[in-house]
């Protein structure tokens, strides 16, 4: 049985900084999240018929999202 060669990344990946990749990924996701949140908030406020649930629902959305985002990056030491 042939010995297994160590896994080497292709040359174009050798110079990629993981910290930069994660930062860019996070910025892209954050922009998507902000757009989604703005659109949702608009619908809740405009079409929620002055519901008492609208603001608590949006606050819950933001808090849970923030918690998950913090959890995602909690293990990273960039």
């Amino acid at each position, binding site marked *: 049985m042939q010995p297994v060669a160590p896994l080497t990344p292709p040359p174009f990946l050798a110079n990629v900084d993981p910290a930069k990749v994660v930062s860019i990924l996070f910025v892209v*996701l954050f922009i998507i999240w902000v757009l989604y949140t703005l659109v949702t908030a608009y619908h809740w406020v405009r079409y*929620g018929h002055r519901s008492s649930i609208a603001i608590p629902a949006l606050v819950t959305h933001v808090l849970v999202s923030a918690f998950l*985002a913090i*959890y*995602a990056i909690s293990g990273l030491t960039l």
Partner: protein
Amino acid sequence: MTRTVRKHWFVLTVSFIPFLLLAWFPTFVPGFLSDLSTDGFGLFSMLNAGNPWFRLFLGLWWLLLWIGAFNLFTQYYLNHWIITTLRIVRIRQHGFFNREVSSFLLSRVQDVSTTVDGIFADLLGYGTIRVQTAGTASQDFVMSGIDDPQGMRDMIMREIADLYRNQSMTHVNGVPNTDT
């Protein structure tokens, strides 16, 4: 009197189940595969919450699922019927920036039928209501999974009866009664 009707909470809860399964999936699969064979799937034992990259993936995956679940709740909340003493208003949110509002007078209602199908529907009291309207552009307004469809049907029929009673008091042979 005005009443707002939405789908039953159980229908909403059931629609959350795929999101819960998808959230649980990445935490279960690596451990399960590494238990099968430590030789072939040794890599999977690294996929736990202690690994910062796996935690990053898990956090972002859960965030994505949270957005989907919240979107579902938004759709649930914005889709509803409003029943007043004069009309029924149906508001359907098909997606963001795609909204349909239909309204019809109670006097145009020809038939109201309800369907309760299944053990959960029967025990928890949810089902489908179908309101058929009369006129040249007769239409069926259907809403499935609503809370207490029989109660809603009774309410609509009661409002229609009140409407006709009031009309008969204020009109005689189609002519407004000036004595009242």
